[in-house]
């Protein structure tokens, strides 16, 4: 079964290089995405039918190991070639260094053989996220790329390449979450780094190339950390199993793996690459932010989180996560580019997840998994709706989305649900925040408590002002034609439905999916939140959800006479114009509040990077020096 999960998308990636017809390619994408989802469902059904136990696979895999070695070398050559072509030194050095380290381990070190792949509940959850969210993003891309190339005539149409990369990414992600052997994970880890690099550079504009190399070297730094962890494990523990890393709990390998996780999940000081990744077409952002890439980082951290509990590495990881949570959310306030806001919010939310996994107790990991699920769905939805809005309006500036509810109502609703999913009370983000706050207090970390208190306030500010901009009624200056295609709507609708269902069925999701994951990671059977608490909470939250709908129908029954808005008595007929001081008609323009001088990136970026880097460097030094905590 597993070869199919990885194989189908990988084969499709090759197919796109051969099939050049746009129409046929569209159908292949639909069929391919459908096949991946169907395969995942069959796989999960099979696994649950087999008793939902932890499965271990492939104890002896000589041939595949050699193939992977060849793959590692190929990736290194690719990076070196591209680095030479674009005259970059850093990626080249990092890439060669880590490949040499891994090859050294593979050919010299004596390690005890063990299973190379593993299936447990966390893997299953990741597979669902990759297959369904990733799959629907692929479907969305078909329609989106048509609109994209109509808008961006200057960009060379390299769609076959783009689709290959999308599917290859999914294949690599499946491989990553299913693997258990460190060298295998490393192999897939490197593939995701390289693919994200290639996708960011899609337009081949100067900015895109620069940003893609930034992403490359940062992720390769993480990869180097991974390679060092492999060497340390091979020499120190004579084992290359991820489970061994957790069970032995040696700090240095843990620190190196955490470094890899931090770079991949774009935590400070490495968050620059994710912001730069915005130059790529929107589907790649959606994929990087929701189903793949950054989720690989937090996946790894959640995997090792039981070993992080109460030690120095855990402290470093959670501090960096907390710092990222608050700083990124503050910087998001000053952004008016919708994709930038989304990027900062991703970084900030991942910060919370990272902080949770750094604490490494049942409650925080429970919260982290919930956060991850909700974040994946709503972020994918938000990116898709922003992308569709950009194709329709020709702009992704939040200022231009004023009154979107009148101009393009359907997109506004989807965006609204996505935003609400990120922070409002009926949705699960909030419950996870609630659990996380409680667990932070229990762990006695006052700094994290302060981070979450301030961070949720700033988070609220930037989402609310966006939401109010969307819902503001305004007679549009010009009518726009919604160019969003059916497949794009299909994908967004799917996400919206999943979002609402997850909110409604929260207790069931907790019982059937999240509790088993926590139980397997920590090896005991304590439920984080009892069923009755969850159920009452869900009822309460759903009632909040129902109230506006009920009120809507009640208020409809009363008749209101509509009058113009108050403009000091200088209205000019409808609500769009007022008389200015020259006695002329002037168009009303309302702007959001960005607090640029207080929360701008210019002021906060450098200090936050310095602080985070200092925490990281000092932490690594302490770990290397063997300071116990």
């Amino acid at each position, binding site marked *: 079964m597993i070869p199919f999960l990885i194989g189908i998308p990988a084969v499709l990636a090759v197919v796109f290089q051969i099939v050049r017809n746009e129409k046929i390619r569209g159908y292949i994408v639909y069929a391919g995405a459908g096949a991946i989802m169907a395969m995942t469902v069959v796989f999960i059904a099979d696994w649950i039918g087999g008793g939902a136990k932890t499965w271990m696979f492939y104890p002896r895999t000589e041939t595949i190991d050699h193939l992977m070695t060849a793959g590692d070398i190929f990736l290194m050559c690719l990076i070196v070639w591209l680095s030479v072509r674009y005259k970059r030194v850093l990626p080249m050095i990092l890439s060669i260094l880590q490949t040499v380290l891994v090859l050294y381990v593979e050919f010299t070190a004596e390690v005890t053989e063990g299973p190379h792949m593993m299936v447990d509940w966390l893997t299953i959850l990741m597979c669902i996220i990759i297959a369904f969210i990733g799959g629907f993003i692929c479907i969305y891309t078909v329609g989106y790329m048509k609109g994209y190339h109509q808008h961006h005539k200057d960009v060379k149409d390299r769609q076959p390449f783009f689709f290959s990369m999308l599917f290859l990414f999914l294949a690599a992600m499946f491989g990553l979450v299913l693997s258990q052997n460190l060298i295998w994970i490393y192999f897939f880890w490197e593939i995701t780094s390289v693919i994200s690099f290639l996708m960011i550079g899609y337009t081949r504009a100067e900015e895109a190339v620069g940003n893609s190399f930034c992403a490359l070297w940062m992720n390769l730094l993480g990869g180097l950390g991974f390679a060092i962890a492999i060497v340390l494990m091979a020499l120190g523990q004579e084992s290359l199993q991820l489970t061994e890393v957790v069970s032995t709990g040696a700090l240095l390998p843990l620190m190196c793996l955490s470094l890899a996780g931090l770079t991949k999940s774009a935590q400070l000081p490495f968050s620059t690459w994710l912001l730069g990744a915005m130059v790529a077409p929107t589907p790649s952002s959606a994929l990087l932010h929701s189903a793949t890439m950054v989720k690989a980082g937090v996946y790894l951290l959640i995997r090792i989180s039981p070993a992080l509990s109460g030690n120095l590495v855990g402290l470093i990881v959670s501090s960096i996560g907390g710092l990222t949570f608050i700083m990124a959310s503050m910087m998001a306030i000053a952004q008016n580019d919708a994709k930038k806001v989304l990027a900062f919010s991703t970084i900030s939310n991942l910060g919370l997840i990272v902080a949770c996994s750094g604490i490494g107790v049942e409650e925080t990991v429970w919260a982290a998994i919930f956060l991850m699920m909700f974040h994946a769905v709503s972020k994918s939805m938000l990116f898709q709706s922003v992308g569709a809005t950009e194709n329709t309006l020709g702009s992704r500036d939040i200022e231009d989305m004023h009154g979107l509810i009148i101009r393009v109502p359907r997109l506004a609703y989807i965006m609204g649900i996505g935003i609400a999913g990120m922070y409002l009370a009926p949705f699960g983000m909030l419950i996870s925040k609630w659990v996380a706050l409680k667990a932070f207090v229990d762990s006695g970390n006052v700094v994290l*408590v302060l981070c979450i*208190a301030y961070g949720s306030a700033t988070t609220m*500010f930037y989402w609310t002002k966006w939401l109010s901009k969307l*819902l503001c009624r305004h007679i549009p200056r010009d009518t726009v034609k919604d160019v969003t295609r059916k497949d794009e709507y299909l994908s967004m609708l799917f996400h919206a439905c999943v979002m609402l269902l997850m909110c409604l069925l929260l207790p069931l999701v907790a019982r059937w999916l999240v509790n088993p994951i926590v139980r397997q990671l920590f090896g005991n059977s304590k439920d984080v939140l009892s069923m009755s608490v969850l159920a009452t909470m869900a009822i309460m939250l759903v009632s*909040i959800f129902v*109230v506006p709908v009920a009120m809507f129908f009640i*208020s409809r029954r009363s008749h209101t006479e*509509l009058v113009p808005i108050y403009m000091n008595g200088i209205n000019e007929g409808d609500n769009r114009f007022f008389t200015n001081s020259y006695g002329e008609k002037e168009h009303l323009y309302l702007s959001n509040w960005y607090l640029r001088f207080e929360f701008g990136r210019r002021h906060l970026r450098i200090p936050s990077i310095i602080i985070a880097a200092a925490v990281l460097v000092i932490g690594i030094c302490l770990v290397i020096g063997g300071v116990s905590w």
Partner: protein
Amino acid sequence: MVKVIFVLAYLIFAPFVGALLDGVDRIISARMQRRKGPKLLQPFYDLGKLFSKERIGVNNVQLFLNMSYLVILMIAGSMLFAGADLLMVLFILSTADMFLIMAASSDSSPYSNMGSSREMLQMMAYEPLTLLVAVGFYLTTGSFLVSDIIREDISAVLWMPGLLAGFMFTTAIKFRKSPFDLSTSHHAHQEMVKGLTTEMSGTTLAIMNIAEYYEMVLLLGIFFLFFVNSTWWSWIVALLLCAVIFFLETLWDNVSARVKWKTLLYSCWVVTLVAGGVNILILMLDK
């Protein structure tokens, strides 16, 4: 059973209590300014008049958003009086506020939109401290549940004086009192007309006012939690102290002028950090 009575009492009496407090507030303020002031029941007459007015509005959604604001506030308050989780109450309270903001910015009215932006800023200013207050109660009593908090042997305030001071400071925002009445105030002669409520009239405004009364009682309920303990007389003391706090807020309203948003945000955050953060730190080290 007791819970049901509490919730019903809150749902039925909170607007009356709120309106009465508003009346008292107006009389005290007037006396501080050497005026006679309106009658005690003036807020009721005002509400009655608002409800009797012809229904006009700038759009059809404002009424429904305001009604949602009211109902969600009622849910939050009911949860508090039912002894539920304090943190959840606070989260739902901020969700309720979201509807008020949406109502204010539901039309492209300049003054109303400015008011709603300022309301968001105010939320950002007071939110950290309210969360810390909940955390403080948890550290002091070992539970977020209001029903557990009121059964403690000693009053929580002994452990969290800093949080109480901070909460008194930031609650001026929620009570819409000067110096923090940036988004809208009780007086319509400010630079932004009536800010948040500029476009609200008649029934819509009345609903908003009632919701504010519910909110006022809810906040006083949280103050009550600071003082109450398992003894019966602590309930009376707590009620009296709540009245004192309300008086202090009125006093502060009358002796201070409205500040700029930066002063608001930074002062609230600094007070949160100093009074709240230090208090939490001490609690964490000690408990």
